[in-house]
Structure formats: structure tokens, C-alpha cells
């Protein structure tokens, strides 16, 4: 059977290690508007061929978002210690489960949250599939290991 491409097992550990600082950075950035000083740069916007604004941009939130996506992907798509077809099946089943749950949550949010609040929902929605997938997959693996002790 053709195997799905996955990263080596070591990347999973790397993902778990990197998740801590990136998660902390993300929470600090969203919760307290924290900005890493040396990540600021001067920028300008060009609208209708006129430079209209010189302002200072900060890359903290961008780096936190990309960092969290990458670490969650590393955890999700690295091989397990003994990767076999049952684990591949669990991985795909968890992915399907995560997509369904994530969109059900989004549907509820569409009908219950309006205005700028919805933008916040969409921001968190960038991560929900990966987060729900990781939790579900880890839970299934935990039960899989526990059942055979």
C-alpha cells in the first residue's frame, strides 16, 4: 500500500518543544498586545499611487500565528514511533472528525456572533482544525495504547 508522506518522528518532539514559546507569544500578543521591540519596522502604504502613510509595523503577531500553525502541523503530521496502517487510519479518521467539528462550531458562530466579534472568531478559526485534530488523534492513540495493556 502506498504510504502517505509524513515527517520523521523527531519532528513531533520538536513541535511539542516549540509549541510552548509560540503559544505563550500568541497569548501575550492577543491578550496584552505584547510586541517584541526588535520586530518593529517602518512601513508605508501605497494607495492610488500616493504614499499615504508612514507607520510602524510589528511582526510579533505574524510570527506567533505562523509559529503556532507550523508547530501544530509538526505535531500532527510526524510519524509515530511505530507507524503502521492502523495509526494511519486513526490519523485520517481524526482529520475527518476535526473538519466536521470545526465547521459545526463555525456554523454556530455564524448565527450567534456578529460584527467585529466575528473577525475574532475567524482569527481563532485558523487554528481550530489543527487543534481539534491533534486533541482527537492523541486521545484515540491513548485509548489504542490503553486498550491493549
Amino acid at each position: 500500500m502506498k504510504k502517505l508522506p509524513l515527517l520523521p518522528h523527531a519532528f513531533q518532539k520538536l513541535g511539542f518543544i516549540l509549541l510552548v514559546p509560540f503559544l505563550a507569544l500568541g497569548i501575550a500578543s492577543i491578550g496584552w498586545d505584547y510586541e517584541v521591540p526588535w520586530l518593529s519596522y517602518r512601513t508605508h502604504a501605497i494607495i492610488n499611487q500616493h504614499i499615504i502613510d508612514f507607520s510602524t509595523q510589528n511582526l510579533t503577531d505574524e510570527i506567533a500565528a505562523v509559529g503556532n500553525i507550523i508547530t501544530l502541523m509538526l505535531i500532527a503530521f510526524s510519524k509515530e514511533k511505530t507507524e503502521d496502517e492502523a495509526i494511519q487510519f486513526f490519523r485520517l479518521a481524526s482529520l475527518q472528525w476535526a473538519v466536521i467539528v470545526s465547521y459545526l462550531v463555525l456554523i454556530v458562530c455564524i448565527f450567534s456572533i456578529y460584527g467585529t466579534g466575528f473577525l475574532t472568531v475567524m482569527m481563532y478559526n485558523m487554528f481550530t482544525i489543527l487543534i481539534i485534530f491533534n486533541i482527537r488523534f492523541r486521545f484515540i492513540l491513548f485509548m489504542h495504547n490503553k486498550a491493549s495493556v
Partner: protein
Amino acid sequence: MKNKIKVQRAIHNLTQDDLAKKISVSRQTINTMESGKYIPSTALALKMASVFGVSVEELFQLEEGD
């Protein structure tokens, strides 16, 4: 789907771990297959059958509702 993996394992005096190593899967996977929670792919079923020297039909049987 019913299976006789456990019976065949006993006949050949293999532990779950032994069989797992022979067909390169984890011991947990052998366990979930024996309990019928996971149905293996054709390739894995053939590998197991060849370890036991039986046909796949002897190892796995369809049940009503399959």
C-alpha cells in the same frame, strides 16, 4: 468480521509482540485486530496469513451485516 488471529497465534505459539515484529506493526495494532475493532488492509491480512501458513479465508470470515 470475525477473525481467528488469536487461535492461530496460540497454535503457532506466538505472542502478540512476536507477530507484530514479523509483520512490522505495533503490538497494539495486533490487539485491536484480534478484538475486531480494526480491519486490516488486504496486504496486512495476506502477510498474517503467510506467517501462519493458512489462507486469508481461514483467518477472516464475513459476518452477517458486513
